[in-house]
C-alpha cells in the first residue's frame, strides 16, 4: 500500500501561513493498492485537492470513520462523486434509525448545501457493522472506538502489510487502569502490531485536562497507546486547528521523547507519502 496524506487537520480547516507545513485541510488519506485501486479514508476538506490520476478510474472506495463535519465536508467537492463513469462506494458506521445515505443527506441537502445526495452520479452506500469485509484485495477490519457518536477505526491488511487508521480516538476514556490494561483499552486490537498507525494527536497534555470526553488524545496518552500496541510507525493526525506549525513541532518533540519503544514517530503533514 502507498499512503498519502491530503488532509491532516482536525475539527475545522485551518488555512493560513502558520499551518502551511502540516496543512490546513481536514481528514483525507489516499491509499493506492495493488492494481492502482484507490481507497480513501475519510472525506474531509482534504478530499477536494486529492488527485485520482493514475488510479483505476472505474471505482473508488471511501471509508468514513464517522460523520462529523470535518470528515465529510469534502465529499461534494470530490469530482468522481459527480462523474457517472466512476463508481464510488462510500462506507461508514451503521446507525439505528437512519441509513448512511440518509445521514449524509442531512448535510447534502438545502439549506446546508445546494447539491443533494440524489444528484451524486454513481454512488453506493454501505452501512458498516463492526467486523470484517473486503475491498478488492484489502481485508478491512472495522471496530467502534472511543469518540462521541458511532466512530469506526479501520485496520487494512494487504498481504502482510497492515495500516491502522484511527483519526479521532480517546484511548484513555473508560479505562481507569490505562495504560496497563489492553483488554479495556479502546482500539487496542485494531492497532496492535500495525506497520503504520495513523492516530489522533490533537492535544497537549495541558489541553486535554479540560477536554476529557471530547474524543481525542493527549501526547501522553498517545505515547502510552503506542507503547501498548507497538506499531512500527506512528503517523500523527487530526492536529488541533489552533496549533501552528511551530506548536506542532514542539508537540512532536515531546511525543518523540515519550515514545520509547522503538516506534518511528512521523509527523503527519499534508503531502506525506508512506509505503506500507
Amino acid at each position, binding site marked *: 500500500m502507498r499512503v498519502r496524506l491530503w488532509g491532516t487537520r482536525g475539527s475545522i480547516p485551518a488555512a493560513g501561513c502558520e499551518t502551511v507545513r502540516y496543512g490546513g485541510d481536514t481528514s483525507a488519506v489516499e491509499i493506492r493498492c495493488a492494481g492502482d485501486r484507490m481507497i480513501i479514508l475519510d472525506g474531509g476538506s482534504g478530499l477536494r485537492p486529492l488527485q485520482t490520476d493514475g488510479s483505476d478510474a472505474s471505482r473508488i472506495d471511501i471509508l468514513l470513520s464517522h460523520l462529523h463535519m470535518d470528515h465529510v465536508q469534502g465529499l461534494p467537492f470530490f469530482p468522481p462523486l459527480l462523474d457517472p463513469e466512476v463508481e464510488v462506494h462510500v462506507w461508514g458506521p451503521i446507525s439505528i434509525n437512519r441509513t448512511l445515505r440518509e445521514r449524509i443527506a442531512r448535510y447534502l441537502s438545502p439549506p446546508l448545501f445546494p447539491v443533494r445526495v440524489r444528484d451524486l452520479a454513481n454512488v453506493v452506500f454501505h*452501512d458498516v*457493522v*463492526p467486523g470484517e469485509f473486503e475491498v478488492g484485495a484489502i481485508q478491512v477490519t472495522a471496530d*467502534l472506538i*472511543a469518540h462521541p457518536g*458511532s466512530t469506526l477505526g479501520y485496520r487494512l491488511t494487504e498481504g502482510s502489510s497492515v495500516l491502522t487508521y484511527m483519526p479521532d480516538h480517546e484511548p484513555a476514556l473508560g479505562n481507569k487502569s490505562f495504560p496497563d490494561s489492553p483488554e479495556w483499552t479502546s482500539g487496542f*486490537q485494531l492497532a496492535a502490531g500495525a506497520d503504520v498507525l495513523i492516530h489522533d494527536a490533537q492535544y497537549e497534555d495541558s489541553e486535554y485536562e479540560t477536554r476529557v470526553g471530547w474524543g481525542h488524545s493527549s501526547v501522553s496518552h498517545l505515547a502510552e497507546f503506542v507503547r501498548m500496541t507497538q506499531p512500527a510507525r506512528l503517523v500523527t493526525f487530526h492536529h488541533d486547528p489552533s496549533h501552528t506549525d511551530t506548536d506542532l513541532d514542539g508537540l512532536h518533540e515531546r511525543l518523540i521523547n515519550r515514545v520509547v519503544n522503538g516506534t518511528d514517530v512521523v509527523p503527519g503533514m499534508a503531502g506525506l507519502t508512506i509505503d506500507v
Partner: protein
Amino acid sequence: MLVPPKEDTRIGPNAHNIGFGPCGQQDATLLHLASRGTKFSPMPPHQQPVEIILLRQVASYLSIPVWVMDSDGNLVYYNDSAESLLGIRFDDVGPIHADQLREMFRVTDLQGAPISESSVPVVVALSKRVPAHGEIRFCGMDGVWRDIEVSAIPLEGQGGRFLGVLATFWEIGD
C-alpha cells in the same frame, strides 16, 4: 446523464466479530478458584467492545449495583456497590468464566427451593436476549444468603451485535 445509484448494501449483522488481546486479571481468578479446589477454565483473551468499556466506566461511578456479562456469559465486571451483595471484591476475583459462575453463586427461589438456571433473570437476558426481572435467594461468596430482586437487560449494539447483559439488583426490603 445521471446514473441511478445502485442498491445500497449493509455489512452484517453476521459479519465476523474480531478477536482480541490479553485478559488482565486472570491470575487473581485462577488463584481464588484454585483455593476452592475448583477446576479453572481460562477465559479466552480478548479486548472488550468499546460499548462494554464505556459501560464499565459508567457503572464504576454509580451507587446502584451493576453486573456486566459479555456475550458468552462471562462476568467481566461488577461495581463497588455490587461487591457487598456478591460478598467479594471484584479486584480480588477478576473476570469470572461463565462455567464458574454457577459454582460461585448459588441461587434458589425465595422459599429456598431449587430453581432452574434458565429462569434466572441474567440467564434469560443472555439466552433469550430479552429484558428479565425476578426475585431470587442468592448466596454470595461470603456465604450469606440474601433475598434480592434482579433486573437484567440484553446489551445489543448497532447492527444487531449482541454484546452481553447488564444487570442491577438489590435486597428485597431495602
